[in-house]
């Protein structure tokens, strides 16, 4: 039985075409505009390749965390523990990463003989376990993610201090340092890690059943349950994955600054959430958000921070500017969604 489509498709006016472009790429356009602004304000210093690489490298840690938190926010959850988990993974990896040899060329302690894979694995494992604990409590006890991850934030930070006895751990093998300071095919390691994890997460979210089910859970949890989505499993995996990414960031950071510090990552979780929100992940409605948007969001924050630093702006002013940007971005996003 043939039937006409109910409403004729309208030829788009040029205004609507621009509107469409802005909707899809708006955030990237904003990034380029801000970058242009910064380069003008710093007399071109901003655009120096070394500086650009710095920017991306600096935001790579927030970016990694941001990827994880994006997925969590898509499911209408939140994660406040990222910074603390980063620190915990950082010090755990650091503890197993230094082959200190004595004058005779012998390893001083047994720990130093562990191959590189050990600190990496342990750092990631610490992250994953922390996240899985979050996920289990949230899924089975149905406690609000805000509270559960707040608890983990405090506990992980305490654990980090316990592991180090309050002192930073340093002195790593060259192999470990490479993870933070090395280059691969001309690309700094932290940036490479970010790139790989972004692509991986993008593929999972968009090309796999599990990824689509993540969006379904966020879109309507009850409907998801009825449609056979394994909601509990998804929550556990999603929080586990996010914290594992925090662990990865922690390992990378420790390698970069050549020090495992229990106070690392303070405030990173909020920056990561800001990056996700600026990138279009919706705090209020579930099921909306992309990892690529979050990376752009992180870049926007990074570019502005970097630009202001180059201009010599007081770092406290930078905080205020950052806050204005976050709120402004969310406002713009709301307006755009309404149309």
């Amino acid at each position, binding site marked *: *039985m043939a039937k006409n489509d109910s*409403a004729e498709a309208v030829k788009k006016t040029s205004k609507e075409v621009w509107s469409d472009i802005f909707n899809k790429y708006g955030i990237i356009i904003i990034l380029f505009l801000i970058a242009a602004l910064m380069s003008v304000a710093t007399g071109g210093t901003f655009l120096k390749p070394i500086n650009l690489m710095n920017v991306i490298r600096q935001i790579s840690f927030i970016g990694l965390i941001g990827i994880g938190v994006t997925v969590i926010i898509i499911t209408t959850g939140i994660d406040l523990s990222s910074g603390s988990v980063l620190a915990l993974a950082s010090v755990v990896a650091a503890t197993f990463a230094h082959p200190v040899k004595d004058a005779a060329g012998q390893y001083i302690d047994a720990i130093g003989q562990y191959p590189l894979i050990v600190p990496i694995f342990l750092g990631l494992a610490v992250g994953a376990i922390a996240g899985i604990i979050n996920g289990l409590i949230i899924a089975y006890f149905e406690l609000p993610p805000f509270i559960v991850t707040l608890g983990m934030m405090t506990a992980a930070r305490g654990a980090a201090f316990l592991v180090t006895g309050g002192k930073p751990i340093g002195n790593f093998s060259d192999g470990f340092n490479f993870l933070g300071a090395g280059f691969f095919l001309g690309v700094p390691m932290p940036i490479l890690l970010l790139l790989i994890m972004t692509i991986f997460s993008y593929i999972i979210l968009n090309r796999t*059943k*599990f990824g*689509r089910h993540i969006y379904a859970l966020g879109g*309507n949890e009850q*409907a998801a*349950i*009825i449609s056979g989505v394994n909601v509990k499993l998804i929550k556990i995996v999603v929080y586990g994955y996010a914290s594992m990414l925090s662990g990865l960031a922690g390992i990378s950071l420790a390698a970069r600054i050549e020090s495992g510090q229990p106070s690392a990552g303070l405030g990173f979780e909020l920056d990561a959430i800001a990056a996700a929100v600026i990138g279009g992940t*919706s705090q209020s409605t579930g099921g909306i958000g992309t990892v690529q948007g979050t990376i752009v969001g992180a870049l926007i924050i990074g570019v502005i921070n970097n630009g202001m630093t180059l201009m010599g702006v007081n770092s406290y002013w930078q905080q205020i500017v950052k806050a204005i940007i976050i709120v402004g971005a969310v406002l713009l996003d709301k307006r755009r969604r309404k149309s």
Partner: protein
Amino acid sequence: MSNNTEYILELENVSKSFPGVQALKDVSLKVRKGTVHALMGENGAGKSTLMKIVVGVYTADPGGTIKIDGEPANYKNIGASIKHGVSMIFQELNPIPYMTVAENIYLNREPRKGLFVDFKQMITDTQALFDSLGIHNISPTEKVYQLTVAKKQMVEIAKAISYNSKLIIMDEPTSAITDKEVDHLFQMVRTLKKEKNVAFIFITHKMDEVFQITDEITVLRDGQYVGTDLAANSSRDKLIAWMVGREITQMFPKEEAEIGEVIMSCRGLTRNGVFKDVSFDLKRGEILGFAGLMGAGRTEVMEAIFGYTKLDAGEIFIHGKKVNIAMPRDALKYRMALLTEDRKGTGCFLPLSIRDNMTVASIGDYTKSGFIRKKAMEKVCLEQKEKLAIKTPSMNQLIKNLSGGNQQKVLVARWLMTNPEILIVDEPTRGIDVGAKAEIHRLLSMMAKEGRAIIMISSELPEVMGMSDRIMVMHEGKITGEVSRKDANQTLIMKFATNTYVS
């Protein structure tokens, strides 16, 4: 103050376009004061959109005119329209669940005692309102989330009436309430018409109601005005022809299907305080109807069978073997599907695309080691779109932009794609136009012929009687009767449904 026009509402050349879609084109409509005017048309015809423009939710494209009581009226928001005497009951109920009935009704116009809200007065006013409307089974102090869908609708109706508007627009007000309550509503409408000269616009798909209560009928099709006529001069067939532009010969074409062995058996299903001792068999090739009044417990029984809620006692057998269904995932393993009653609450993933909504339950069929095979999935989605005549420019369209009926079709597609052996549908054609209704009925018929077994919960007696091979009737959580297709008649079913049957 009333102007000297005959019409309370005059729309001329009203158009409305959304990105990529022309929802309304040059629509005109005139509603006389003190009349009940029906606005009919298929899903996507533009009825709700047109009314939303009248009350200020949408703004019309430039070029048309809107007049209320002779004065130009381009309201920017609902508050403005209410102030000027126009109120609307929306199809999708949106009360504030954790507030009381009284608070919901007097939202934004709470009686004050100095600086503070006068709760006592609010409750008294609400009770007075209910008394004047003859509503006796809802308490002003109940919290709305505890009310059944039917009661929520009555609250919405009472609220709209309480604004003392000159024009009240009702969008599918009877979709969730029983015949008794429908009669009650019509009584209220007649009284307000006579005593206060209130005009009503009634968006509905229900032919019976249209001929019962309306004075004039306007039909829209594909966003355009088709015609207006007095109800007295109209016939069912003429209206249908206007709405779809073609003839529909049969409303409920349940075709003969070979009825085979028992696929599912339920014995003694009980959920304390909700339903008790529900037992029945479901055979291959049959459509088993579940009739009853709102609150009879039919939805609750099916949700428990599907594993969405818990059973306190009882056993379920599938193909003779006892099964334990603890959650919907288990039910899906047994090739069961459940199309829920509340598409907004438990059906649609509103922020997601049509494609996502359609494929969520069957996505495993299109994956290879976890990765989606896009071509295969897209092919099936488009097939479903054709088969169910879902009106959308693209699969990427967000489901929240579709009309209610088209959303329902997407959900039907979702469950079809799981190739179920047992399909449970709960009010499958609620809020759907005649054309789509017939399509869904034909689909269910065909599925039965294919050897599946279907349970259909429906509160529309003609539908239940036309589609079912057997009908189970429930009343307050218990099965009160079973009627075969050939013995079925409205009186008998009603008697079982109200438990007044004495054998």
